[in-house]
């Protein structure tokens, strides 16, 4: 490469001095389209694990069985009252509510918005999250007001010999 075009003002004897040939085809239309196709590929690959965990849940492999845990005695829980407990782990807060003589509901009470503890308001008949006034239906755990959009994970309970046990939890991957 000669130095003749590096002088200022240079002696302009060619018409290509402003073209960087090496970078010419870096992001032309074709290269841009290839990038788009590659991005579509990334999306396709990244949706595989979601499909896998969804299929796993559908086949029932996600239904874990935890050791049954005694929550409280039936005699200690009057109708309309609630009791807090931990299930399945020691750090998974949950709440048990006795709606009628034989109707118990239990949920993991971490709000599905930002995981504040949801508590039971007997007078209103609702479960309320104090942080942003999210409300949940007590029968189903479905959100009825406020920021949360997903239902609370439900815990199955059973009554045996005058005591209430937590059996299993249908939970979210938080």
């Amino acid at each position, binding site marked *: 490469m000669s130095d003749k075009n590096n002088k200022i003002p240079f002696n302009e004897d060619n018409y290509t001095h402003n073209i960087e040939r090496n970078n010419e085809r870096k992001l032309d*239309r*074709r290269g*841009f*389209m*290839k990038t*788009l*196709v590659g*991005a*579509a*590929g990334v*999306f*396709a690959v*990244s*949706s*595989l694990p*979601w*499909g896998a*965990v*969804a*299929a796993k*849940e*559908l086949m029932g492999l996600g239904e874990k069985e935890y050791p049954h845990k005694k929550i409280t005695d039936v005699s200690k829980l009057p109708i309309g009252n609630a009791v807090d407990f931990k299930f399945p782990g020691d750090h998974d807060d949950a709440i048990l509510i006795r709606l009628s003589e034989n109707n118990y509901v239990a949920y993991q009470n971490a709000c599905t918005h930002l995981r504040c503890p949801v508590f039971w308001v007997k007078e209103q008949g609702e479960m309320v999250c104090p942080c942003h006034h999210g409300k949940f239906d007590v029968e189903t755990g479905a959100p009825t007001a406020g920021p949360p959009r*997903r239902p609370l994970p439900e815990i199955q309970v059973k009554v045996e010999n005058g005591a209430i046990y937590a059996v299993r939890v249908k939970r*979210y991957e938080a």
Partner: protein
Amino acid sequence: MKRSYIGVIILAAILMMNIVFTQYMVHQYYYENYVNVLIFGGLNIVLFPLAVLAYKKTINIRA
């Protein structure tokens, strides 16, 4: 040389659909509608060969 940008437009549309489907897929997962997760995941995967096809079909079109 005059180029056709139809391919770019198609691919951008495909990418937009990818984003929408992914968003739906993740949300449906948390809603525990696992069948919908599979549907949207499948759509996302189908879009990739479509994108390759769109690229190959439109790469030599001249306006």
